[in-house]
Each structure stands twice: as C-alpha cells, then as structure tokens.
C-alpha cells in the first residue's frame, strides 16, 4: 500500500527571546492516510495543522517520530526528493514565469522533456478550466484563476501525496464553493492522495473522506464526517464541530441527571457511573406534535420556547429546559405551530443520545 503514515511525530517551538521556553508544541501524532484518500485536518488557527503539513512535506524537520510513504521511511528525505506537491494559502506562482511555465515547473525539475511538459501543462490547465492561459503572466489572472493555476501546478507533477494548506481561504465564498467542487472532481478522477488543512468545518465536511480534528497541537479524533458528527469523542471536538447542546451531568445506576437537575432520564444502556457530558445534536431533538411518533424508549424533555430564528430553509428554536438553553432544528411546519414563551415537549430517541466522559 502506498499510503502515508505519520508515526508519533513531534515538533516543539521555543520562544525567540530566550530560546528555552516552549512557545508551541505539536504533541506526538499518529495518522494513516490510505492511497487515493482525501483526509482533512480541521482545527482553529494556531492549533498546529500547518506545522503538521510542513512536517509531512519535509519543509520542517520533526523533533521525534517518523513519516512513511508505503514502507519507506521518508523522515530525513528532503522535500525536493519526496515527489509530493503542495498548494498554499496563496497561489505563490512565480511572477516572472508564464502560467504554462509555472504549471510545468515540477515536471521541469523532474527533467521531463519540454514538449511533454507543455502537453501535460496544457492538459492540466484545461482540467482546471484555464485552457488558453498558458502564455499569460500570473499578474494577468484573477485570484481565483491564480489558485486554479496553482492547483494545476500541483497536480501535473503526478504527486504521490497532494498537501493543501487552506488553499481556498483567501477566495470569496462563491469561488470557494466552485474550487471545492473542482478539487473534489479532479481528486476522484486522478485518485490522488490528499492531506488538506482547513479551519472551515463546512469545507472539510463537504470534500473529505475522513477528517482529523486538531486542537492545541493535538490530534483529538479522526473519523468520517458522519462518525465525527454523530459520535464526537470529546466536548472539544463537539464544540469545534458546532454542536450546541452539551450538557454537564452525572450518571448513576443508568440514570442521567444534569448538574441543575433540570434534565433527568434513564440512559437505557449500561454506562459507567460518573461525571458525563450529554451531547444532543439540534436535529435529534424533536417536538411532540399530533403527527409525531416517538419510540417507546425515547427520552422526553419539557421546556419553553425562548427564541425562533429562520436559517436558510429551516428554523432554529432555542428552548429553555431547566436551566439549559437547548437548540433544536425545526421544519417550517413545526415552527409555525410555535411562538416564543410557549411550552414545548421534546423527545430524543435513545440511539441519538451521545455521552462523553468528563
């Protein structure tokens, strides 16, 4: 298997003034990326995503750990010999070269004959929607076109792994969406292995096979978008994924009680006693109406509607249950039956209850 394996990689940065105090540390990280897989590293700014990407590219040397491609240890191999490609936050095209020369740069470094280079560059530019731009200079292209050219430059060299460092973050939202679709299509077509860094949840969920959530130099959880969303391993992961209803409480003898005792129910499944967080995704909280059919073992919650907000095709209701403010997603029909300050009863199916240890 020609996958990429990151094994116990560590990197520490010291403060510039003294050189002794640790300013940032990437904790030992393990990550395996299969051949042709699209993996994203998702996390807030400064969490170590780019450092991990640069370590993978060879632009930084780790303090400990190994990086393997297939069975080969490439930790000490310089970036110029790894045959990886990288797309950066900015296009970083060379201004003195035409788009054609920029795109074929990697092939030139691989000593590919000029005719073949030109042919491949033209083909790749067509693929990214820039046919006929070979003779132009970067300054003659818009930001989005430049980033497309940078993508073509990365793909034309037939990289073993394509590394992408927030490549669409500088583009406007519409263009960003187009680029995601373009990248997704090309990645599937060329079956290239991608390690993608982003702080945009929507972006990561839309294009990735798997996502690694990072925070403070640690890789918190790796999984498919559905796994991460439905079974976050910690409250940190859950809150980074935008999950709102995280309720602190205790489980004793199969009974959950929130700290303010406003929410109490039988868990219905064996869970070790102790302090836990209950995570309720907004869409699993359903209002009990004449047409709703809760399962027999579903958990019922009582509350009061505090606010109703319209949000792109659906409604978000804020409900006060005990002292907990819960958020739930409603359809238009469901929302039309409600108004602020109205009492509401909600239910959650047992299978949708997610507990995370304190």
């Amino acid at each position: 298997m020609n996958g990429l394996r990151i094994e116990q990689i560590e990197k520490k940065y010291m403060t510039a003034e003294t050189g002794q105090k640790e300013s940032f540390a990437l904790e030992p990280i393990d990550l395996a990326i299969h051949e042709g897989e699209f993996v994203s590293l998702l996390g807030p700014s400064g969490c170590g995503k780019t450092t991990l990407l640069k370590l993978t590219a060879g632009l930084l040397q780790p303090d400990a750990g190994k990086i393997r491609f297939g069975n080969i240890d490439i930790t000490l191999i310089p970036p110029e010999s790894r045959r990886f490609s990288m797309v950066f936050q900015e296009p970083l095209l060379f201004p003195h070269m035409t788009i054609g020369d920029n795109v074929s740069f990697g092939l030139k470094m691989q000593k590919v004959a000029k005719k073949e280079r030109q042919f491949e560059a033209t083909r790749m530019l067509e693929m990214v929607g820039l046919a006929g731009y070979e003779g132009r200079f970067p300054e003659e292209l818009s930001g989005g076109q430049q980033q497309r050219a940078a993508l073509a430059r990365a793909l034309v060299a037939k990289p073993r792994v394509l590394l992408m460092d927030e490549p669409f973050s500088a583009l406007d939202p519409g263009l960003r969406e187009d680029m995601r679709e373009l990248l997704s299509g090309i990645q599937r077509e060329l079956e290239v292995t991608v390690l993608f860094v982003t702080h945009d949840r929507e972006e990561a969920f839309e294009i990735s096979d798997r996502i690694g959530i990072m925070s403070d130099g640690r890789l918190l959880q790796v999984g498919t978008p559905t796994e991460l969303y439905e079974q976050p391993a910690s409250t940190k992961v859950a809150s980074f994924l935008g999950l709102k209803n995280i309720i602190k409480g205790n489980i004793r003898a199969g009974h959950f009680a929130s700290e303010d005792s406003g929410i109490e129910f039988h868990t219905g499944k064996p869970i070790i006693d102790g302090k836990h967080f209950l995570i309720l995704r907004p869409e699993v909280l359903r209002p009990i109406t004449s047409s709703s059919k809760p399962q027999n073992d579903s958990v019922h919650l009582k509350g009061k509607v505090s606010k109703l907000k319209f949000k792109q095709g659906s409604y978000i209701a804020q409900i006060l249950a005990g002292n907990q403010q819960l958020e739930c997603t409603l359809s238009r029909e469901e929302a039309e039956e409600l108004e602020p300050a109205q009492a509401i009863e909600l239910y959650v199916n047992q299978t949708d209850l997610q507990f995370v240890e304190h």
Partner: protein
Amino acid sequence: MWQKSKPYLLLLPATGAIVLLFFGGLFDGMLKSLGYFPAIGERQLHLTAYTELLSSDSFWESLSLTLRVAAISSLLAGILGGMLAIALFMMNQSTKAKESRLWQRLFQLPLTIPHLVAGYVIVLLFMQSGLFSKLLATVGIIDQITDFPVLVNDPFGWGIILAYTWKEVPFVLLMVYPVLARIRDSWRDVSRVYGAGNLSFIREIALPIMMPSWIIAVFIVFVFTFSAFEIPFLLGVTYPSMLPVYSFQLYTSGTLADRPEALAVNIILALMTIVLGLIAYYFSKRWNVTKGWQ
C-alpha cells in the same frame, strides 16, 4: 496661477545650475571640438579635430584599451557582485540571517572609499614593490619582488581592472540584493516541494529575477569605467592611455591647437555612452526582462 507655477519657480535655481553646467559645458566643448575657438582666432566650424583624431593610431589604441578595461572590469564586478548577492540571499534564506546582514555591511565598505584612495590601495598592494610581492618573496613563492607580475602601470590595464572590480562589486551588490530580497521565503518552499534544490532555485528563480537590475548595474559600471579619469591616470601607462586620460594629455599638452582634439575625444565618449545606453534599453525592452515582475 501663482499656485501652479510656484513649484517650478522654486526648482528654477537648481534646474538652472544643472542646465548651465551640464548642457552649457557640453555645448561649449562641442563648439570648441568643431574648431570654434575665439581665443586663438578660430571662428569657423569644421571637422578637422575629428578627422585627425579618427586617423590617429593613438586614438584607436586608447579606444581599444578603454573598451577592454571597461568591459573586463564591469563583467568581473558584475559576476562577483551577482555571486555575492546570491550567496547573501541564500544565507539569509537559511538560518543565518544575522550573519548575512553582517557580511552585507562588510561588503559595502569599499563603497565609502573614494576612487582615488582605491587606486592608491591597489598601488600599495599590487606594485612589484607592494605588499603582496613582498609577502610572496618572504614566503619563498617568488625569488625576488621583480618576479611578481607587473599589475600596476601595465599596458594591459590589470591595475585599473583590479581597482574598478574591487570598487564596483559592492555597487553591483547594492543594486541587485534589494531585488533578491523581494523574493518571498515561501517561493523557496514552493520550489523545494516541486523538486528544486539550491542550484535549480538559483537558476530558475533567483537569476531571472535579478537579471534586469544586474544588467542595469553592469551597464552603469561599464559607462562609469569607460569615462572615468582618476584611476586610469594613477594606475595606467603613458601610452596607450585610456580615452579620458588621452583627452587630458591632449588638453594639457601645452599647445592650444590640440584642445579641439581633446574636446572631440570627450564628445565621442559622450556619444558612445548615449549609444550604449540606447542599446541596453533596446535589449531590456526586447527581452521583456521586467515582464511579470513589476
């Protein structure tokens, strides 16, 4: 009206002085080179000075020496200055940014030294009785100081070439390094990821980017060495002498009759500088060297 013309009026004294001294001098020199010399009763315009000059062997030998010295010194200064700029740039790109700044200051030192002093430094170091010959004789590499090659006041002009190379390398560095400093650190990362080692990076990125300013720097050095006086006067031989010295020799030969020829040499030097400038401009436009790197 006053508001509009005020800046021009304020500039008038400085502009007037420049126009009077530069163009006035040039115009007076041109008139005298064409034989208009009221001091000796000559008031007619003719090309005698130019025809005599162009038919004399001394002029052609001087021109050949001037071209050779200017070409070799500007090329050497260009190559060394370019190499130093790239070395400093690569040093700056690595972890040795502090050392790079120190070396840069050191290399700029010769800029502060006047050309005449530079000439004397070359005399003291490279004459047969200079420091280097004595050192080589002391350590036994040469038997006696007369075995040391004649590098000062030599007919080929090595002394002049050495002085100009030493003096102009920092100038080329000063012209080229700021352009290289504009290269973004991330371009180095990009090029490395796509397979470029240090040499490929220099060949593909650094050299093409510095080339336009390098060409301009070398051209300035060439034009300067082509028409400069003090170093060729100090380090050259009496015959053949470089054109500016030749002009001075003619001008101070003791007879007023030689002065039109002396001034004709200067006019020819000025014309050649203009022609060289136009050639450099034509090629820089033709190669489109600054395209994409504004």
